[in-house]
């Protein structure tokens, strides 16, 4: 919390509206700057505030369900975390990517940041949120594995694979990191398309915007991560070796970030106002 936050909190204790007297004349400037650190902190922490709450709720519900199963002598032989939690987290990252333009665009540019800085701050958020999401998923698998071991249950994934020790978890974490970054990048591009073209016309740009997510779905550990689409109608697409798939996803994310940075320059604020004609 900033000093200002503390001071305003203490100030609010005294009750608003009590004083009707001139504001002090000897104030001093102590503001910050729209630096990469500050803007990146706003996009990252601002997103984690709602994502963190969501993850906390999900974790609590998951623990309750697992507890009930254990208490009622039920049993599982496949990961519940994979089926109930891990699969849909990508949509959370997609939504977070969209808000980079819809929420943080006006907030940062309205407070003096350039669009280029907005793009950089969004890239920082992409890395931070993908890391956080990957950590959440991987730790969830790990804790579930410990619980299953304690209960004497098998801890297999959907296709019967086992998470092979620390290396397996590291591989899984890296895969989710890339997957989440790809989904975030797609959401980021969708948000920019909507910001630039408006809510009616941006639909035509959705197909190219989802390319990073599609690349991740098709080329990266369809089996291990239990991707919802991979293998369901797309089984004919040969899945490359893990490092190749990872490189392809990273490349797609980097290209998406460069495109996003470029397209961000065309944003007109307030969002939704007509674009200028050239």
């Amino acid at each position, binding site marked *: 919390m900033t*000093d200002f936050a503390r001071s305003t909190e203490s100030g609010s204790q005294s009750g608003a509206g009590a004083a009707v007297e*001139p504001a002090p004349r000897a104030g001093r*400037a102590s*503001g910050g700057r729209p630096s990469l650190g500050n803007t990146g902190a706003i996009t990252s922490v601002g997103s984690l505030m709602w994502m963190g709450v969501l993850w906390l709720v999900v974790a609590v519900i998951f623990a309750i369900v697992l507890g009930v199963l254990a208490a009622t002598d039920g049993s599982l032989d496949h990961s519940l975390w994979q089926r109930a939690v891990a699969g849909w987290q990508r949509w959370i990252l997609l939504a977070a990517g969209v808000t980079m333009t819809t929420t943080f665009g006006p*907030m940062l540019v309205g407070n003096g940041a350039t669009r280029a800085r907005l793009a950089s701050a969004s890239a920082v958020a992409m890395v931070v949120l993908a890391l956080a999401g990957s950590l959440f998923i991987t730790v969830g698998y790990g804790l579930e594995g410990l619980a299953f071991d304690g209960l004497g249950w098998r801890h297999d994934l959907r296709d019967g694979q086992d998470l092979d020790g620390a290396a397996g978890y590291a591989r899984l974490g890296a895969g989710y990191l890339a997957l989440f970054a790809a989904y975030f990048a797609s959401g980021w591009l969708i948000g920019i398309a909507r910001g630039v073209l408006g809510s009616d016309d941006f639909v035509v740009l959705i197909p190219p915007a989802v390319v990073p997510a599609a690349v991740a779905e098709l080329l990266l550990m369809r089996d291990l991560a239990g991707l919802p689409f991979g293998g369901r109608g797309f089984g004919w697409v040969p899945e490359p070796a893990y490092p190749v798939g990872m490189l392809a996803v990273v490349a797609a994310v980097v290209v998406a970030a460069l495109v996003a940075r470029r397209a961000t320059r065309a944003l*007109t*604020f307030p969002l939704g106002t*007509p674009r200028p004609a050239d």
Partner: protein
Amino acid sequence: MPAMAYGIDIAGLTVRHRGGTAAAIDDVTFSVAPGRICGLFGRDGAGKSTLLAVLAAYRRPSGGTVRVDGEDPYENARLMSGTCLVDEGGGIGIEASTKVREVLEIAEMLRPNWDPAYAEALLERFEVPREQKVDALARGRRARLAVTIALASRAPLTLFDEPHLALDPPSRQIFYDELRADLDRWPRTVVLAGAAADEADETASLVDDVLVLRRGRLLAAAPAARLRSLGSEITGPADAVAAFVAETFGARVLDAEGGGGIGSGDTGGGGTGGGAGTAVLADRRVGRLRSVVLAEPVPEDRLAEADRAGLDVGPVPLRDFVAHLSSDDQREAAP
């Protein structure tokens, strides 16, 4: 240390919206010197918000040049950081689901000249609760938050897109007092946009320069004092006023019922043509007294006659001039 006041130089500025039929801003040229307070007037749709959005680099112009402190503000990190634009909702930077306290924390993180103590004092004066969410604030309170942000940001170019118009009269007076006092300590360039003529009167004591827009075109860009000197207000017994106006400016300036119409002619553009072309900006009666505001100064050699007739001759209220210039009936540009 960055410049504390940015100058504005705009030449041939044109903004056309994609798909729009008319230009939102049409070939506008003006300058505002650093440290001036500029009143920007015009009716809804005149182009005020678009002009402010261009100055704040929220949008790119379609044509012309925009210079703020000598440079193009679009994607200019120094200038965008030194420019603050607020409207009655607080501006585009405010996320409605955040608390007032969080809005100020964000401003403090990003605004180089942010003064937290001043912001806190202003919140107290304006009675804005810090822990309330922005979307839970009434319109007037949001406007108070908006002017708090603008004042405490101390941006070298501070743009008000009518937030002060949503303030109740006591809060508006506080705002004017604070603006005047803080500008003494932190000189900066201020643009105060207003829609209606009434605000011109309220801000008359504040503004150094006046810009009047109508349908995207600039009708007047002049120091406020010069605009006032271009006209005259004649007050006195109704019959004496009518006779004096007829003798001085022409018999047809006021009609038979004495109800001169606003916008009935040219504003003079600095000239003193007189005759039937003289515009009547306002014509008011209170009992036997009548006050006529004309877009022409009373010639020096007629002042003694006015005095003999028991008439008061004074400068034009800014409100009347702005109302006339921004009227749809207006045909020609003023100075």
